[in-house]
């Protein structure tokens, strides 16, 4: 009895199959990323001891970095989409993007701190790159609080979209901060940073690992994103039904 109802509801839900596939893929991708980052990638040749071991966190740091940026980009797309179309689908997309971007933003800060302790001999320092990254996360935390403060769904969507557009200014600012200011944060790609401490060169196995982990993290991001997007649309449907009931 219960099994038949649950199986019919599974059939009725077009999201069920694709989301399950994506979940399994994401779980496998995380295993693959762990294997590639910790075992497959060779140690950086110019580092030694703890620094060499800590360098392996770089792959997860970059993976989280790409997905956080992706989340914030999605939020901009969703916000612009809402402001042009005035459909809450876009707003939910922006919200899901911000939430995931902030989550991966915390991952960036955490992995960075773990790496910094053996390399810089401190978990935290007010370096330009670290400062701008923290501000970005704080701004997006404020975005979530701001959303909570408004009841009308369309007012909330409009104001949150406007704020998200402003908030996104901090993302390119973070990207360029280690290139513009004197920063000790290493710049691995496109140009070196003369003041960087703990930088390293990318060898062939490291480059492959980086590509693998980034793809794996993007799969994880997509799985989480579509779950959250769907969950938000279900939430919105419940709200619609409730409004109908209490009319």
């Amino acid at each position, binding site marked *: 009895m219960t099994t038949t109802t649950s199986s019919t509801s599974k059939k009725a839900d077009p999201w069920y199959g694709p989301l399950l596939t994506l979940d399994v893929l994401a779980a496998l991708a995380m295993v693959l990323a762990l294997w590639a980052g910790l075992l497959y990638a060779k140690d950086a040749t110019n580092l030694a001891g703890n620094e060499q071991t800590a360098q392996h966190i770089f792959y997860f740091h970059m993976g989280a970095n790409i997905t956080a940026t992706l989340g914030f980009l999605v939020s901009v797309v969703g916000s612009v989409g809402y402001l042009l179309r005035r459909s809450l689908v876009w707003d939910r997309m922006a919200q899901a993007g911000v939430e995931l971007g902030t989550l991966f933003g915390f991952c960036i800060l955490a992995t960075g701190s773990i790496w910094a302790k053996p390399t810089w001999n401190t978990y935290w320092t007010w370096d330009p790159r670290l400062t701008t990254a923290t501000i970005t996360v704080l701004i997006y935390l404020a975005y979530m*609080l*701001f959303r909570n403060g408004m009841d009308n769904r369309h007012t909330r969507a*409009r104001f949150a979209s*406007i704020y998200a557009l402003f*908030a996104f200014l901090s993302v390119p600012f973070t990207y360029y901060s280690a290139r513009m200011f004197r920063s000790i944060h290493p710049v691995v790609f496109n140009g070196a940073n003369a003041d960087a401490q703990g930088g390293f060169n990318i060898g062939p196995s490291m480059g492959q690992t980086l590509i693998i982990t980034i793809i794996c993290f993007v799969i994880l991001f997509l799985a989480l994103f579509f779950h959250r997007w769907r969950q938000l649309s279900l939430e919105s449907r419940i709200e619609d039904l409730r409004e109908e009931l209490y009319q």
Partner: protein
Amino acid sequence: MRNDTLSGLLGRPVQMRTGGGTSAFLRKVWAVAAKDIRAELRAKEVASTMIVFGLLAVVIFGLAFDLRVPKSSMVVPGILWVIVLFAGVLGLHRSFGAEVDRDTLAGLLLAPVEPSAIYFGKLASNLLYLFVLELFVLPVMLVMFDTNLFQPYILLGLFLGTIGYAEVGTFFAALTANSRARESMLPVLLLPVMVPVFMAGVSLTAGILDGRPVSGLVSWLVILAVFDLIFFVAVYWIVDLIWDGI
């Protein structure tokens, strides 16, 4: 729907006065700002609170750091900018919060001017309050901390930083005016966005007080100016979106 009845009653068609070029726009901005300043001169509600808070904050910081730091000029840059930011939040949320409390926001929005004129009017009055606040705080800091902040580059930095702060602050005050708990929401939204201004301002002030060469500090002034410019353009493009549909 045509508004024949309304135009019939008034004897002329209702239309928004959007034309007229820059000088007409500035006149509308001034009209909004003058309304706010007149209300403030009568009620003495916003600027007076900011000034008193600012002076209190100087005293509290003085007590907090008294005899604990070797030279007061080491903490003065931070104190100055913290006071400007915190006292500013007090005034900024009132600029639209007061309109919402008195149910006059709809009336203001019905005025036959562009929404951006309302924003710039509010911005002008907020800027005035902030400058008055600084006019009171700087001499008191001179007395309390024995540090002369009346130096051209410090004042220029303060001027540029205040403009950026008022631009973003007025805009976020408009955004948060309709949300629950706007008094606490405004600083949460505003302060992280103001970090570039805060950092540039503190570094510039500290550099000048330490007597470092100005040529090395110009980049902070450039950051402040670029911040002002970016947000001026961004807000000008986006401000009309806040009030559509209200």
